């Protein structure tokens, strides 16, 4: 699913250059839910941004779903993201003017689904995250946890192969965080994979693998049976 080799990232130039990632190589196969942990500033966000094709590393290569992101153009990268990658963020980033179902459906439309199909698919995705009775609510009328579920539904509705998340539970209380993580766990099957950045140790039990980053280097990489 993901194959990164010798990835290095340096922000800025000359005297201002900061090396953030050093020769990071990881392979994440299908069916794996990987957690990325590490202290603040260790380069976690930078790494997943590179894996998702949002930024281009200054060294190394990245392959996602058979596409070598590091040799594609901006537009081609966008195309890969659109077809294969779902995103969840710390904030829900939902359009406040749109209902839950419209927020999900409009992203499906951008991903190429015809209008007729987008509505039912969006409703089904929201039902899967337990919001069948909140379809017509706007973000302002939903709780933080419900909004994040809508964000998860939006990311997963188009059935991406890869889910990328950054601190997706850090704005939520413990119980709600676990619920969101359960949704992610349910998404990862034989065909799909997820890379989730977190500081929260309680989420570790959901993971197949825990990768720890420090100062831009992978310092530990352990596989486990999720419980």
């Amino acid at each position, binding site marked *: 699913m993901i194959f990164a080799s010798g990835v290095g990232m340096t922000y800025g130039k000359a005297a201002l250059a900061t090396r953030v990632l050093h020769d990071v190589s990881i392979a994440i196969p299908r069916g794996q839910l990987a957690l990325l942990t590490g202290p603040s500033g260790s380069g976690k966000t930078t790494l*997943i941004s590179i894996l998702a094709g949002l930024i281009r590393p200054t060294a190394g290569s990245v392959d996602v779903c058979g596409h070598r992101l590091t040799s594609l153009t901006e537009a081609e990268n966008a195309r890969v993201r659109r077809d294969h990658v779902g*995103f969840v963020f710390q904030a829900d980033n939902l*359009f406040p*003017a749109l209902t839950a179902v419209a927020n999900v459906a409009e992203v499906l439309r951008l991903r190429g689904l015809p209008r007729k199909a987008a509505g039912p698919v969006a409703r089904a995705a929201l039902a899967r995250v337990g919001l069948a009775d909140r379809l017509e609510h706007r973000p302002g009328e939903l709780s933080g946890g419900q909004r994040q579920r809508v964000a998860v539904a939006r990311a997963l509705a188009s059935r991406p192969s890869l889910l990328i998340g950054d601190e997706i539970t850090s704005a939520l209380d413990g119980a709600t965080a676990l619920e969101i993580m359960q949704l992610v766990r349910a998404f990862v099957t034989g065909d799909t994979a997820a890379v989730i950045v977190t500081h929260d140790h309680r989420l570790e039990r959901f993971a197949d693998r825990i990768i720890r980053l420090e100062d831009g280097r992978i310092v530990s990489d352990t596989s486990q049976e999720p419980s």
Partner: protein
Amino acid sequence: MIRIALQSLFFERGKLLAAVAGVAFAANLVLVQAGLFFGFQRASTAVITRVGGDLWVMARGTALVDFADPLAPGVGDLVRAQPCVERARAVIFSWASIRKPSGGIDNVQLIAAEARPGGALPWALATGLPSDLRGPMRVAVDAADLARLELPASAIGAPIELQDRTVHVGAVTRGIRSFTVVPYLFAEPHEARRILGLADGQATFWALDLARPGCAPAVRASLERHPDLAIRDRAEFEAMTSRYWVIGSGAGATLAFAAMLGFIVGLVVVGQTLYSLTESRSRELATLKAMGASGRELAAFVLWQAGFLALVGGAIGLGCAYGLKLLVLTIGLTVVLDGTVIGAGLGAIVVMCALASLASVRRIHKLEAAKVFK
């Protein structure tokens, strides 16, 4: 994207109202100013247009219809003798002075013309018939000028001291006003010559109806050999006259300035609104970009909003312009709202909204998808 764009616009009611008001204001101002401009043009050339003809013969050096020396009495025969001239019609257009009952004097313009079929002067009568002017020393006065000329409200038959002669009001016109608001008095050509002391067959202009429009250059060339005569195409003469008044008086510039002001105010209001809508949704838009939306798809966020504002604001502005048109008609001003004015005015509004969206579109193009993780 249309749904995201319009619902986001409607979600911020205050911004929506401000922007619609801005576009409506701009559209209204642009339309009314353009309409007044064409109204002034029409007013300044109304008599030429009404008299018609293919070519106009005038004294050499004449720059506009309002200031022209009378032609020599023989010119009528001269122009009628030209091949291809089907008819030559006398037009008398002259300044004259009036002594009012109170003793004061005022200037008027005395107008008479041999009409083409269906083109009788004057063309809009409030009281009386065109034939009422056939009696001796009869003139028509506009209803709006009665007070100024100290004439009674029921003016038919009232005497006027015109060029030291006594004439009588034979008919009252409605809404025939010059650009300069100097009163137009209409008479039969024969009576006008008597009042002005012109010889029989004398005229200020000759309007020529040609057998074929194609022979205009030949007729023109032939008559222009005469040292005292100038020949103009009718449309050309209309343009010269309206340019003299509407541009030369500064009225055109004033109207253009007001229209531009409306345009700029609208531009700023709409630009501000679109930008603040884009700015306040930049996180969500960056999210869509991360999810693979192209720059063009994201720009549609702004463009749909701009298009909606142009449409709704433009329609409201047009409605207001119609209202204003009726309102100013009551004070004798004409606002022309024909297809050209509406097309050009609404075209300007579309351009305005397009310009107003530029900054926001640039903002969207600069959005970095990677920023959504921050």
